[in-house]
């Protein structure tokens, strides 16, 4: 025990003398852990939010009563059920309002009197929920404080909506289960949403006989369904969360490289101490224990700080993530992070595991050395050569394995494992590549030049120290390139697709009072209107997933130019005809990739008349949509679902200069200002949703690069530290500053260049896997891969910047420390 304490004291005194090494170690640990834990916190928060969403207005909402055709439940049906004595049933209205400032305001409403006692037991609010003020004009709007902050709503303010209505006076007040939604009474909610039907009826837990009795009492157009909202949401959003996790894991891996590097260095510097300790009779096991304790301390400190940093990071990333979740999936995340001990514990355990791995490996290497190692450089080089060879063999094995398992991959998580294998193989193969560059240089430079020989020898001496940093750089560059390619390709594919999909000039929302017939009846309309496509929709469930059916006008201009990703021969004509024997539909490719539907397959869909089979004649792109979707001619949709609701109506102008005239005509036909949007608005809105979704990815990417930069800086500083006496000797021998810098930095630039070059094909490979394998598995969206050199050049500049910055820092250190080193040279000669 005495030995342990003393050894620890001796080992840790190192950081007292070289605090910046401790700083790098902590920085590496934090950077890696922070990003990883930030994403874990966000994912945990999201899952908790979905669960909380499930508890909105009572965790006991085990069932929902919904209209079979999804048109909502009438108040009459609700009243009828209550009269029959079903006290477990309570009404819910949910929707989204648009403020005058174009902010989306999610609302939820219920009838507090009907709310069963169990449903309000979890209410922690101070104000009485069923107070009269809530249910009587002017009513109350309960804003969660965080949402109020976000929207800038003050107490008692009546928020102005886009359609000119005002919300009830605001109260900063929450009921635990309302989530990130404004709570209202049913009456004001229906009038604000301009609806006359309830969204659904919620039902608390039922005994089996009660359930049967309720089922029997339901009118034919209503059905009792299990509440699956949170399940649906978890399913839908899982891909996004997996994607985020994978990205953060990548940065964690880069972080581990840093830690590995830092520990290797710190042990390398402490070789003399380790040797002395062993000479004085400290056993290897005591030393191992001491270093293990040190490791543990570092891990605890690093992961603790990293988690704290991750928490801050998660708060700054949360708005981006919630807005993409909201726009992609309609999922609401609360803006105050919900901490889950389990999530944190997991993140921390994994962190610890990774750290210990990164710390144990170099330790083991160090302690295997004999007490008095023959400290010559040649033996060091030889062992380094062996390490490179081993890494190369491991890389080849891993690469072969990756090729072998590629065809067997069917799940997202497997895809990410494949990705990890490819990246790791590349990183491991890098040192051999760097070494061969020196061999090439040896071959190219004049053999009789002393300076060339010196440069190359010095390169060999630097290689072991820079190796790991270069691997981290390679990983970061590759990840950045790959993801940039993915995002770039996606953006191009999306805007081309929007171009075709949103071809009309005006889109009038289905919820508008607008009547197309009124417009068409106006004799002036023919002057400016070129074409029109009135669309309808209905949402169903198919194989436990939501399925949207969209009815379109098959002769409208945008129905003529549909481009297929796959189709049966003559698909468009056959589909447009709609009157053939078979019921042909177009499906979005999500149905193909996620549900495994193939061309010509038939889907049995629930219609009011019973199940009907529809056949898939072609697949189309449908970016940004998490749901399955089918397109069919309006006439076909109407034939089976007569109550289909309007979706939107698109109008083509004969010429852009008729725009003002068209808007006048829309107003005359019953539309209100704000009921229609112009094509360019939708397009820019869609693209901005896209950009927001990938903002997170971009942020994580640049962070990864920063992490790698820290690794590079740490490595260079370490080399400096190690070689300072040697540099002093150079100076003493008359080497000038320029020569010294040339020798020191040439290998660095060559290797950074090689690493960048290696990252190009790797980045392409990564984006290829991301686009053709992972994206398809995650979202069901396919797209062509577009290669562009721009991001590669950006990264080259950035890397150059980082290297120059570190060199400046090293130069500054050298200036500060060299005189002292020179003085010592004299003292010890």
């Amino acid at each position, binding site marked *: 025990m005495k030995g342990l304490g003393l050894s620890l004291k001796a080992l840790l005194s190192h950081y007292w003398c070289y605090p910046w090494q401790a700083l790098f170690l902590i920085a590496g640990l934090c950077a890696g852990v922070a990003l990883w834990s930030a994403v874990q916190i966000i994912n945990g928060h999201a899952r908790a939010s979905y669960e909380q969403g499930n508890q909105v207005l009572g965790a006991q909402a085990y069932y929902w009563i919904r209209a079979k055709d999804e048109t909502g439940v009438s108040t009459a049906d609700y009243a009828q059920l209550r009269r029959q004595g079903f006290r477990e049933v309570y009404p819910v209205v949910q929707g989204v309002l648009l403020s005058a400032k174009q902010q989306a305001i999610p609302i939820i409403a219920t009838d507090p009197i009907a709310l069963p006692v169990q449903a309000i037991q979890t209410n922690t609010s101070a104000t009485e929920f069923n107070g009269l003020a809530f249910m009587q004009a002017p009513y109350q709007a309960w804003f969660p404080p965080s949402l109020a902050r976000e929207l800038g709503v003050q107490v008692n303010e009546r928020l102005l909506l886009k359609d000119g209505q005002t919300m009830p006076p605001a109260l900063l007040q929450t009921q635990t289960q309302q989530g990130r939604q404004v709570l209202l009474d049913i009456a004001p909610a229906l009038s604000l949403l301009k609806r006359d039907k309830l969204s659904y009826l919620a039902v608390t837990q039922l005994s089996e006989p009660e359930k049967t009795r309720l089922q029997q009492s339901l009118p034919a157009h209503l059905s009792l369904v299990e509440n699956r909202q949170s399940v649906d949401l978890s399913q839908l959003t899982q891909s996004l969360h997996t994607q985020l996790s994978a990205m953060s894991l990548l940065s964690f891996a880069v972080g581990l490289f840093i830690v590995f590097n830092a520990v290797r260095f710190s042990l390398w510097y402490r070789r003399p101490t380790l040797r002395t300790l062993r000479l004085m009779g400290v056993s290897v096991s005591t030393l191992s224990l001491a270093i293990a304790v040190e490791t543990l301390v570092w891990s605890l400190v690093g992961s603790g700080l990293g988690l704290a940093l991750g928490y801050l990071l998660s708060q700054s990333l949360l708005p981006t993530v919630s807005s993409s979740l909201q726009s992609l999936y309609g999922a609401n995340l609360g803006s105050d992070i919900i901490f889950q001990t389990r999530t944190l514990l997991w993140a921390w355990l994994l962190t610890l595991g990774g750290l210990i791995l990164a710390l144990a490996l170099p330790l083991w290497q160090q302690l295997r050395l004999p*007490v008095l190692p023959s400290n010559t450089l040649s033996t060091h080089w030889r062992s380094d050569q062996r390490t490179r060879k081993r890494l190369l063999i491991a890389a080849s094995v891993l690469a072969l394995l990756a090729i072998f398992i590629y065809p067997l991959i069917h799940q997202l998580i497997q895809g990410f494992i494949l990705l990890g294998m490819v990246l790791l193989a590349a990183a491991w193969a890098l040192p051999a590549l760097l070494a061969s560059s020196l061999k090439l240089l040896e071959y190219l430079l004049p053999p009789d030049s002393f300076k060339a020989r010196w440069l190359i020898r010095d390169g060999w001496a630097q290689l072991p120290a820079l190796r790991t940093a270069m691997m981290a750089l390679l990983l970061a560059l590759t990840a950045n390139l790959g993801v940039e390619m993915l995002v770039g390709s996606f953006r191009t594919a999306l805007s081309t697709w929007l171009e075709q999909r949103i071809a009309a000039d005006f889109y009038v929302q289905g919820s508008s009072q607008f009547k197309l017939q009124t417009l068409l009846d106006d004799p002036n309309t023919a002057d400016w209107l070129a074409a029109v496509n009135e669309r309808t929709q209905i949402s169903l469930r198919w194989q436990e997933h939501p399925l949207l059916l969209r009815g379109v006008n098959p002769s409208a201009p945008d129905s003529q130019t549909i481009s297929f990703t796959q189709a049966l021969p003559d698909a468009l004509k056959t589909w447009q005809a709609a009157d053939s024997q078979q019921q042909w539909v177009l499906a979005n490719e999500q149905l193909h990739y996620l549900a495994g539907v193939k061309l010509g397959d038939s889907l049995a869909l629930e219609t009011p008349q019973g199940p009907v089979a529809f056949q898939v004649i072609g697949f189309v792109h449908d970016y940004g949509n998490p749901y399955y979707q089918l397109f069919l001619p309006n006439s076909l949709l109407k034939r089976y679902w007569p109550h289909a609701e309007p979706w939107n109506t698109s109008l083509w102008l004969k010429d852009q200069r008729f725009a003002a005239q068209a808007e006048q005509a829309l107003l005359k036909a019953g539309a209100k200002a704000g009921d229609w949007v112009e094509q360019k608005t939708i397009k820019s809105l869609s693209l901005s949703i896209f950009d927001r979704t990938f903002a997170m990815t971009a942020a994580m990417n640049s962070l990864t690069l920063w992490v790698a930069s820290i690794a590079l800086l740490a490595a260079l500083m370490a080399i400096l530290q190690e070689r300072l006496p040697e540099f002093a000797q150079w100076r003493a021998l008359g080497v000038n500053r320029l020569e010294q810098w040339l020798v020191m930095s040439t290998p660095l630039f060559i290797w950074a260049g090689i690493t960048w070059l290696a990252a190009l094909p790797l980045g392409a490979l990564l984006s290829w896997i991301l686009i053709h394998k992972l994206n398809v598995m995650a979202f069901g969206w396919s797209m062509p891969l577009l290669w562009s050199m721009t991001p590669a050049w950006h990264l080259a500049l950035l890397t150059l910047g980082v290297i120059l910055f570190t060199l400046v820092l090293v130069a500054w250190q050298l200036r500060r420390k060299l005189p002292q080193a020179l003085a010592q040279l004299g003292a010890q000669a």
Partner: protein
Amino acid sequence: MLQLIKVSKAFPQPDGQLTPILAGIDFQLNAGQSAALLGASGSGKSTLLHLIAGLDTPDSGEIVVRDQSIMTLSEAKLAELRRHTISLVFQQFYLISTLKVVDNIRFQAQLSQRYDPAWEKQLVDRLGLGDQLQKYPHQLSGGQQQRVAIARALLHKPALVLADEPTGNLDEHSSEQVMALLSELVKQAGSALLMVTHSRQMASYLDQAYWLKAGSLHSEVIDT
């Protein structure tokens, strides 16, 4: 105390051939005695010392320290041996650069739990380190650093001190000073001393002297 029986050691040369360095060395050192080990450069003096300290293993033969063969000891037992019984003093000092002088001096004594403040005071005074205790090793001169290493090696009064050219890094004057101190303090500590040196002058401070040549030891008579 220390006994070597037919100890042999050979090293492989770059061309793969084995060159014998030590060929059947027999040697004995009694408790409290001191001996000098002389020999040409490359004759194997350091190698012999390393074998005795258990830092390397002989190809054949037997090394007995305090009636115990060290050939069969495990790494942990060897560490134990170095901790309590054998102290090493090298030409390169091997101080822990990140610990202050005072911590360096006390290190091994604390490790073996034989720290004696009075003896420390005596050592520090004799070695003239009183003003250096709060400094770091790199702030000391070579001779001072070596005196720190000597203090460290003797503070726990080990049974055997092995010294490999402890004065090799020092000028003539400080060499003599250090040597005189070392032989005097070793006597006071009651330790045995085996010291490698190049100089007969240094060897004359010790009880016996041996000459290592062509792999075997010869007794020498040093006249002062």
